[in-house]
Structure formats: structure tokens, C-alpha cells
């Protein structure tokens, strides 16, 4: 059935709703493009035969194929577009370096897109005020200046802005400035304790 392969791609996206990155389905995309080519060629042939050989009745076939072609195009673009959206969210989640398992799942071109996006975002952030402003910080409204955090994994030494070194070992609790440890909370190294 025409258009099934591309539907699979879209369904794949649907299933990975929770934001995980599935591997780029190179194979699927290629098959869709092949299908499109086949449909187009078929259409061309039909048009030629209608024009030259005067066969009628092929019009509905052409129309059907054209609709399929359009549908394939739309779905394929949607697939790509949504993947880009996920990659963009990853940048905001993880920072400018992606974890290895996510990187594996990107196609080369997606990775290039990511690099360019990174650069463009970085130059935008740099241009704000003097010295730039890191927009990926301060994701939640600050409730207090200092927060209590619990260390979930052995992270080793961690240096704060004013130079003090804190040793982050599993199952130790610390009371620090919120702005210093926000990124560690996002990474899952620390857990915010609300007493």
C-alpha cells in the first residue's frame, strides 16, 4: 500500500513521545524516497501515454499517485521536522555536548544541523549585554538563595564560583547556592531536598 512506509516513520515518532531519541531511520527514509520515485516515474509514464497514445482513464491513477506523492512528502518532512525539534530540546537539556548514546542515534546531517544550531545559539547568547547571558540556566523560578541537595552518585570534586571545593560523594548532603548546583541537579548528580 502506498504511503505505509512513511506512516511507519510517523508512528515511530509518536511512540517516542517521551523525548528519547530513536536512531535515524535511514532505511525508512530511503524506502520512502524510492517509493516516491517509483510513483513519479509511473505517473510520468502515464502522462506520456495519455498524451501520446491517447489513452484515457489513466487520469484517476495519476491523481491518486500524485496525492500519495504529496502525502509522502508531507509525512517525511514532518518526520524530519519533529526530529529536529527533539534535537533542539536535547541541546537545552544537556548542553552543547550531547551524551554519546544520543549522538549515535543522529544521522550525519542531523548532527551537522545540531552543530550549526549550537553555534548560532552560542553567538546569540554571547551577544546579550556585555559578556553574554547563558539562557540555559535558571530554568525554574528561584525560591531561595541556598538549597539543600543530596548527592546521588560519586561525582568527585566540584568547584564553586568563589573557589571552594566540595567533595561530592554518594549519600552526602550539602547546602549550597542554588545557582552553583543547578546544572548538576539537571544532570541527575544531585537531588534537591525539600524539608
Amino acid at each position, binding site marked *: 500500500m502506498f504511503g505505509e512506509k512513511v506512516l511507519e516513520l510517523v508512528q515511530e515518532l509518536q511512540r517516542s513521545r517521551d523525548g528519547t531519541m530513536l536512531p535515524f531511520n535511514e532505511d525508512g527514509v530511503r524506502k520512502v524516497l524510492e517509493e516516491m520515485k517509483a510513483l513519479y516515474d509511473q505517473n510520468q509514464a502515464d502522462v506520456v501515454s495519455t498524451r501520446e497514445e491517447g489513452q484515457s482513464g489513466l487520469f484517476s491513477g495519476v491523481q491518486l499517485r500524485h496525492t500519495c506523492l504529496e502525502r509522502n512528502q508531507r509525512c517525511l518532512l514532518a518526520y524530519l521536522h519533529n526530529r529536529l525539534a527533539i534535537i533542539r530540546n536535547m541541546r537545552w537539556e544537556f548542553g552543547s555536548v550531547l551524551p554519546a548514546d544520543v549522538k549515535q542515534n543522529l544521522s550525519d546531517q542531523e548532527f551537522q544541523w545540531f552543530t550549526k544550531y549550537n553555534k548560532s545559539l552560542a553567538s546569540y547568547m554571547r551577544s546579550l549585554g556585555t559578556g553574554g547571558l547563558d539562557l540555559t540556566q535558571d530554568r525554574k523560578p528561584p525560591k531561595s*538563595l*541556598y538549597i*539543600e541537595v*543530596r548527592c546521588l552518585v560519586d561525582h568527585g570534586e566540584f568547584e564553586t564560583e568563589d573557589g*571552594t*571545593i*566540595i*567533595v561530592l*560523594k*554518594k*549519600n*552526602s*548532603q*550539602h*547546602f*549550597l*547556592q542554588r545557582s552553583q548546583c543547578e546544572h548538576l541537579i539537571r544532570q541527575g548528580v544531585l537531588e534537591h*531536598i*525539600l*524539608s
Partner: protein
Amino acid sequence: MFVTDIRKDFYEKVLHKRVLVLVSFDVDAICACKILKALFHCDSVQYTLVPVAGKMDWERVFSEHAEQLEFVVMINCGATLDILETLQPEENVTFFVCDSHRPMDLVNVYNDTQVKLLMSPEESIPKYEDIFRDDESDDEDDIGNDSDGSEPNGKRRRFDEDVLERRMERRRKRREWDGHRHQLLFDYEEFSGYGQSAAMIMYDLAWKMSKDTNDLLWWAIVGLTDQLLSKKIDRETYVLEATELNRHVARHNHRGDEEEDSVSINSMRISFTSELQLALYRHWSLFESLRHSSYTACNLKLWTLKGFKKLHEFLADMGVPLSECKQKFSAMDMGLKDNVTDWLVTSARKFGLEQITLSSFHAQYGFKNKFCAFDVAYGVNALLESVETEKSQEGYFLEALDCLSRSNIDKLAHGLELSKRQFRATVNTVQSLLDMTQVISAGSFLYAFIQEGTPDTRYFARPNCLGMLARFTLEAYVKMSKNRKARTLPLVMTAPLNLETGTLLVVGIPPLPELEQSSKNFFGRAFEQAGKKTSSRILHDNFDSSVIEMKNEDRSKFFDALISLLT
């Protein structure tokens, strides 16, 4: 040295610095820690909090965090150990110790610079001059000695004689002083015991800074209660301290008669009442609670058939139907529930349970949550010493720390459930120990070995729990035994600790308190000496010197040595 003004000499010193807080594994320490944390949060003092289970942990954590550290606070750990010697810190590090373990190490007491003790000084501490001595005069003596030996001539001979006399006089005095010192030290360090609760010291600090609240007060109460429940202090001391806390309770929970002015039902109210010594009875059924509380179980001798019947008589005397007693307490008939405590007290007197009530505190917030200090202390302890294998010991410590907050009632409820399981295991074990007469008298003390095999034994791989079992057993045995002397004997109990490494946990408890005296525990030294004599592989890791770990194989020779030592 002892701090005189806890606010100026301790709190204000750490006010704008970073602090490392080391906390040991007991409920009193957890409560003190919570109070201190609340104070630090108020003043934005940055800290790092690490739980330490024993001496090895303590040393390790200090060395890990030692870089750039200037202030260390130790809660319920460190007073009995020579801090400077063991940790070898830099010169700019100051230690603040808030520990209820006694005896305090004398080097800590008399150190002027780096060690500050937050406890109050005690009379039993020997004076400085009796223990430490500047050795200058001795050196002179020795030098004089060396040069004197070579060339005697007339004048010098006379000179020599004078010098000799003086030297001999000095030496005699020195020996006298040494002997006196030795005796003092021996007496001072012979017995281990406990001082004021760390939580109360912290609460006192909070009060002096006018930052005390009902929550902090409640934690101080729980800390004190834990000391009573683990028999670290006796009833008299407890009553004195509780009265002291009651003043604060009255101050915070003052409610006039005007109903309109009363505060929201969700705020915490603490009240001071006479409480039954029945463990967890509000969260359990009356019947179960009577069976598992050590006071009632031992006095009614519930492991015997006769005792069991007596229990039923007791309940009948109270006037409460048996089916109600076996119901969950909260589900009991309303009319009965209100009166049951009075009936219980009346009946108790007839059955020889005069001391069934004890004044204590309970806290109430919201309509659902009413907790008695005893129950909370049991619950927190059960969480702290949980033997489930999901988390590490430190993980459970942090959970116990969390459960004291009002927003974590569900954790406390879980702790109470764990506590019930602990009680059941304890009663079952006591029953089997007595049935099979496994409590053996060695003349000067009693001992019992818990064998592995039953699923209950895993609960006793923890020091506080094993201690509770030991006290229960001792009480039960004393009540059972016809031997008058049994009353004065202490008990040593071992339980399997770790099957893989083949170690045992050994706990020694003092004899039952006679005439309301708090008993002294001499097992710390005894264990040490017995171990040395037999070169057994023992580990004196716990801050409590009467708790040690030992290898299975060394048990028999260790006990032989112990017996010969103590007879």
C-alpha cells in the same frame, strides 16, 4: 576545651564559613542534626553533611573532605577519641564536638586551640595538673645526672650528695604522681556511659538565639526519648530533663481559653502527658502492644503459659473485650478507647505493673497525625537500622533524617511498621532463648549467642537493635530466674553480623538499674583487654565502646578470656 558561651564560641564562629558535619548512626544524633540544619538554613551557612557509622568511616570522611576545610562539627561522635592524634589535621582546623558518649578523651578536654566541646564540664574529669605535667624539671635532672657521673672531687662530692638527695626526692615525687595519675585515669576511663542528649544541647543553642520553634522542640524531645528508650539515661534523669523541656513546651504551646484565637489545626501542638509504656499501642492493637513491650512482657512473664493466662486475666480485669483488644487501636470502639488508658492504669497496679506510666510528650498536627515521642523514636530507629537490602546504610540514615520532617509522614508510618517487625522478632528471639535456656551464666556475667538460621536474626545485625534485644532478654531472664544474684549481672550478647566475612556483632550491657541508679558499663575496656590477651580479631569501630565486631572463630577463646578477666 569546653565552650562557655555556645552562641559566641561556636555558632558565630561558623556563621559565614563552610562546615563539615559528621553525624553518627543514632536517633539522638539525627535529631540534633535536624535542629542544627534548621539553624544553618536560617542563616545560610553552607555545610556538607556526611553520616559516619564508626571510627573508620569517621577517619575516611575527614581525610576526603579535609581540603580547604576549617570547621568540623561532630555530632555524637569524637568525644571519646583523641581527635588530633587520630585525624592529624592542619593547624587551622577547628573541631566542635557535641557528643553524649562518655568518658571524654582528656586530650580533647584540655586542648586549648583546636578542639571545642559543646557539652558542659563534668565533675568526674580529673584536673589538668593531675594528668599532664611539664617535663622541664626532669630534663634538668637528667642532664645534671650525666655530667655528674664523671669527676668527683671534694666540693663536688658534697654538691653531689645534695644534688643526689634532691634528685631522689624528685624521683620519689614523680613516682607518686605517676601512680596517682594512673589510678585517676583508670577510674575515669573504666566505665563508659552517656551525658546530656546532643539534641538537647542543640535545642538549647537554638533557644539562646531565639530561633527555637515547635518543630525544633519536638526533635529535641525525640532525641531525649531515644536516650531513655535505649537506657542511656535512667528514669530520674529523664524526668528532670523532660520537665526542663516542658517549660519550653508550655511556652510554645500556650493556648488560651478563647476558641477564636486558637491557631490552625494544621500547626503542631505538643502536650505533656502521662504516657503508657506500651510500645506503639496507638498504631497497633492493644493486645500486641502489651505482648511486645518489654515492661509488660517481662513483668507478666508472657513467654510462659501462666503468664499468657495472666495477660488474659489482666485484660478481663480492665473490662475490655478480647476482640476489641486485638483490633487495631484506632479502630476500637470509641467509648472504650477513651477510657482504656485509665482502666489500664488501675488494673496495672493490681498486677504489679506500677510503673506503667511515664510522663512524655505527644505531638499533634492535622486531624490525622498524633504521635507520641516514644513511637516516633522507635520508628526513626527502625528506619535507621532497616535491614532491607535496597539501600546502603547511609541511604537509610538519610531516610531516617527525612522522616522527621512533617511533610514525610508516610516515611514515619513506614518506620513504625518496620518497628513492629523488629518487636516481633525481638519477642520471638527472647522466647526461644528462654525456652532453650540459652542465657548462660558465667559467674560474673551472663551471655547469650544468637544463632543464625531464623529469618529474625538479620534484624540483630545492627547495634541499637541488638542492644534492645539484650536489654529485653536481661529483664526477662532476671524476672524468670530464681537466682538472686542474677539481678546484678550484666549481659553480653552476640549475633551474626555478616555471613560472608564470618563476623559477629557483640554487645555488652550493664546490669539492670537498681534503685534508679544509672548503671555503668565496663565492657568497653573488658572487650579491649580480652581481645588483646587472646589476639582475637576484633574491630572496635563503633563510637560506643561496648559494641564490637569479631570473627566467628575467635568467639570461644575471647569469651574464655573475658570470663577469666571478670571473675
